[in-house]
């Protein structure tokens, strides 16, 4: 594992003089907040407004009050641009930032495959080997913190809403109702 491997634990505590329990007992705090996660949280990508918004959705986590807004610019076949804004914890913010980095260029089927693969990762299931999760793999530690799964999924269920509202809106002229739980 190299230092920038998203699976490697954070080295941030080394030399800080402070020893987290995780260093003694193996509790996976550093596995939750991996270096790649903290990097996305500190410097979230995809915050800039889009020139054109074709679909958008608002996501809300009633457990913690976190909110995410996903806006999409769509070409005929694929996602041209993504903006993710909102207020959330480190996991939610990092997940939204990774979303903004990964999704542009994907077609709708690829978007849904990515969402499903990410869900598998968070549930501790096997991710299809052909699926490249990119930095999202760095959120694999969330699987060991069940209450944080919703934090990681919030941007993605919001993306799902935005895509579906657009697809259905085009197909039937009606907005999609209901939201799938992560």
């Amino acid at each position, binding site marked *: 594992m190299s230092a920038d491997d998203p699976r490697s634990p954070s080295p*941030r*505590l080394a030399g*800080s003089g*402070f020893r*987290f*329990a*995780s260093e*003694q*007992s193996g*509790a996976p*705090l550093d596995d*939750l*907040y991996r270096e790649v996660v*903290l990097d996305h*949280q*500190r410097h979230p990508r995809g915050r800039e407004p889009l020139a054109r918004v074709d679909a958008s959705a608002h996501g809300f986590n009633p*457990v*913690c*009050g*976190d*909110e995410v807004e996903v806006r999409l610019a769509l070409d005929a076949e694929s996602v041209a641009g993504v903006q993710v804004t909102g*207020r*959330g*914890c*480190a*996991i*939610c*913010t990092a997940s939204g930032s990774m979303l903004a980095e990964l999704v542009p260029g994907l077609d709708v089927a690829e978007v849904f495959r990515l969402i499903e693969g990410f869900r598998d990762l968070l549930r501790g299931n096997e991710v299809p080997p052909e699926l490249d999760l990119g930095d999202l793999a760095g959120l694999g530690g969330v699987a060991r*913190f069940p209450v*944080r799964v919703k*934090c990681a999924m919030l941007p993605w269920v919001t993306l799902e809403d935005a895509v579906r509202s657009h697809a259905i809106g085009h197909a039937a002229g009606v907005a999609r109702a209901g939201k799938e739980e992560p």
Partner: protein
Amino acid sequence: MNADLGVEIRGQGSGERGDAGSLDARALRGRFPALGRLINGHRLVYLDNAATTHKPLAVLDAIERHYRLSNANVHRGVHTLAEEATAAYETCRHRVARFVGAADARQVVITRNATEALNLVARGWGARLGPGDEVVTTEMEHHSNLVPWIMLARERGVTLRHVPVTDDGELDLAAFARLLSARTRVVAVTAMSNVLGTINPVPEIAEMARRVGAVVVVDGAQSVPHLPVDFATLGADFLAFSAHKAYGPTGVGFLVGRLERLEEVEPVWGGGEMIREVHLDRATWNGLPHRLEAGTPNIAGAAAFPSALDLFEELGLGPVRVHEQGLVAYALDRLSSLGFLRVHGPLDPARRGGLVSFTDPDIHPHDQAQVLDNLGVAVRAGHHCAQPLMRRLGETATVRASFGVYSDHDDVDALVDGLMAARRYFGS
């Protein structure tokens, strides 16, 4: 000074370390088995007492004793076990009446929790309300003292009004006075905010409400386990609280009411226990309080709660209050001096109960709580079932540390150390 509660308390907590009244918190911890746990290699520092407190051995033993020896249903058998179970259940009612200063045990309805008690008032007493009637609650209520009234408004066309919260985290009593009118039928208010810690002046509020003929409903979930209370002088018509925030079992709560008001409460649940005579097509109701308690209750829980009340009688609510006020003073002092936190609620420890909510502008409450948990410190992060108050504060969530009889200065120090660790952890 706690004249707000109609009860005089001697002694003052201060921000000085070591001045926490006469309770020996560390010795008390020995009675609470869960507090002996190690969490991620650290001593459990339990600062989520506003969500639920831990249970002393005496309570755990009483639950087990009930099931092992006296298990039977209540109020419906002549055998020895049934008599014992009924006696234990009714002892709980009598002990609660004495604890809150209600003259008659029939004034105590045993429910599942404070939420159910508040719903019972909103549905059972609210059944007499209709369009044109107004219910006044406040912006700082827990959802359990908001949603039942929202449901009543939906079902019966009642109008809701809300007392705003000032920037200091107190109720705006001048605005409250302006909301009151002959149309006001109910004033529902918390005695102590579960987010801000604010102790509301219930006797004053009740007096203002009664002047316009309104019924006063007090959510005592946070106040009853931490502040002396005297129902007879509180001025309330109804007082709701739960056992599990008072070192008792979950699944047991109480609605204490004036008898003449309780007589006006329509039964909300029908079934066994609450009836006198049943025909196929009609029934008559039992008397108070059984009329409002349908079905088999949490007998073991009720049987065990007096063992938690023993703890309060042993320590005294006055000394408990002094102890927790001393801790909150120390916590306010230490948290404020960190310099990076926004601390919510009144700054005067005398005006707040033993809890403190805060936010770090740079770290989300969930992330702070995660780091704290890693150090064995249990706090609550979230909206605390008070979303309207969160909006008023301009926050989506806060971290809340809340104290109990077994909390001490070391616990506050562990919290502060953990918050600084979170800063280092997430600092760029």
